[in-house]
């Protein structure tokens, strides 16, 4: 079940094979939903669920899918899962669902999910595919949460809605929130910084 090979599938997307910082996939939503920590977390969770179960289901029926129409089949599965996730979010965390707005629906077009199904689930057994899906979803989520943490802290001075900087009394000494952090361009720069840090620590990742 949890052999070394399977564990590698699960954990390598956290670092050396991260979907955002190494494969550069799913950037669009990473820039759009990370202005606050809470939506970033919910988004990370949703994508993990969809990636994991889409990989599992496709892997279960992989031998029955005619290869010429496989994209359509994959999309049907992903879309069904996304609608489920969307309904759950609307039922239980309505305010976050409002904030995420169109980006929940756009999980369907998230390259990570399609990429993992095409690259992995179509050719592997269900259990490794499931782990691979979870791993990539979490790897995506880690970056989202790092981004959300810094963007909310520096841009709005809060964390999960709690006014951290105000409690610390930073505003009294002249600190001002950085409005650029709220804007998507700064999120792109932050992703770039994360990539920079990761590659200067792990030289193998630098492309020749």
């Amino acid at each position, binding site marked *: 079940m949890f052999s070394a090979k399977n564990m590698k599938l699960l954990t390598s997307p956290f670092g050396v094979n991260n979907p955002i910082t190494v494969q550069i996939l799913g950037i669009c939503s990473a820039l759009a939903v990370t202005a606050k920590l809470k939506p970033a977390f919910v988004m990370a969770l949703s994508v993990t669920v969809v990636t994991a179960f889409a990989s599992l289901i496709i892997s279960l029926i992989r031998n029955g899918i005619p290869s010429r129409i496989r994209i359509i089949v994959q999309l049907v599965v992903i879309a069904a899962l996304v609608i489920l996730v969307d309904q759950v979010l609307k039922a239980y965390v309505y305010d976050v669902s409002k904030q995420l707005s169109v980006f929940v629906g756009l999980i369907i077009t998230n390259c990570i999910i399609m990429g993992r199904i095409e690259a992995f689930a179509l050719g592997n057994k269900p259990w490794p595919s499931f782990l691979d899906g979870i791993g990539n979803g979490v790897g995506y989520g880690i970056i989202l949460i790092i981004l959300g943490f810094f963007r909310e802290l520096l841009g709005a001075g809060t964390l999960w809605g709690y006014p951290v900087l105000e409690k610390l009394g930073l505003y009294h000494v*002249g600190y*001002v929130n*950085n*409005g*650029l952090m709220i804007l998507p361009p700064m999120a792109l*720069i932050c992703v770039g910084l994360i990539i920079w840090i990761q590659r200067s620590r792990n030289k193998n990742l630098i492309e020749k």
Partner: protein
Amino acid sequence: MKGLRHFVDKIKPNFEKGGKFEKLHSSFDAFETFLFVPNHVTRTGCHVRDCIDLKRMMIVVVMALLPALLFGMYNTGLQHFRAVGMADASLMQCFGFGLWKVLPIIIVSYVVGLGIEFISAQIRHHEVNEGFLVSGMLIPMVMPVDVPLWMVAVATAFAVIIGKEVFGGTGMNVFNPALLARAFIFFAYTPYISGEKIWIAGLTKGEGIVDGFSGATPLSDAASAALTHSEIHWTMGGPWDWFIGTIPGCIGETSTLAILIGAAILLWTGIASWRVMLSVFAGGYLMGLLFNLIGANAYMEIPAYYHLLMGGFAFGAVFMATDPVTGSQTNTGKWIYGFLIGSLAVLIRVINPGYPEGMMLSILFMNAVAPLIDYYVVQANMNRRARRVKVAQ
């Protein structure tokens, strides 16, 4: 002078390979070449080497900036004393007040920027890039005088790291670092760099300000009139005052006269491109004329030459657009590049009153487009010559 040379020669072995302070070689090299023209000679091939290297070039630009900076200091004091109702303050009083206000910003900008430059040169074992000599002077000059110093520090760090070091240092940057620092503050801390209150020292605090004193710049007068569809009410004198520069604004940008003196120095020494400078002014003027033809609101109807005097247009045209690194390299490209900067700046000003100063955005935008312009200019030249070959055959 000889003593200094001897001293430098004496301590030099310590910084060479194997010396005591080998690690600090970059820093030593920076200071040595700053003090003395390096005596490098070309060893292979045919290569003319001029004694005017990058450091000497940068110093000329800094000298060209001095008239605008000194006037900016004087004007900072003048505006402040006008705002508090001391119209009889002497020239030295004004200048002293301005010096006291502006000097900290210059120091912060240089310390932070050069600090990062030295550290990154040390890490990469490069020579220290001299580009920051000019950027460090430009940054304070495009700031409002009341900007908090830590914001200048953050913006400078952002501009040097993200704008320059990431791309490989001086000569490799895509965007003008000084404008990037300003854009950073503009988007991150908007209330501190736009509006009507922040251009004069002490006006935001509001202590002892004369009743009804507005502090609006000509640009914000025009922008607010465009927003409310009313006639423009110029609160700060007329075009002559704008030309001399006794109006509120960023520290170094108000005086078109002082900037033109700087422009003369740059053109006389051949450091800045006259093509870029001329075409920026031409572009702005023609765009102004075009708006005169449309004439949909009061802002569009102002005389076209007003645009060249208001805000940072002249400063941008002379000191920012002519940056040899971020601009176009080909001669035809320079004309197009400059013309588009001028016309886009006026376009942004007039069409979008949310961004009263279009110069910053238009230069940054054209910085990004400059390589594309060069590419097409070179391609066009190649095609032309290819056709000529065909005709000859």
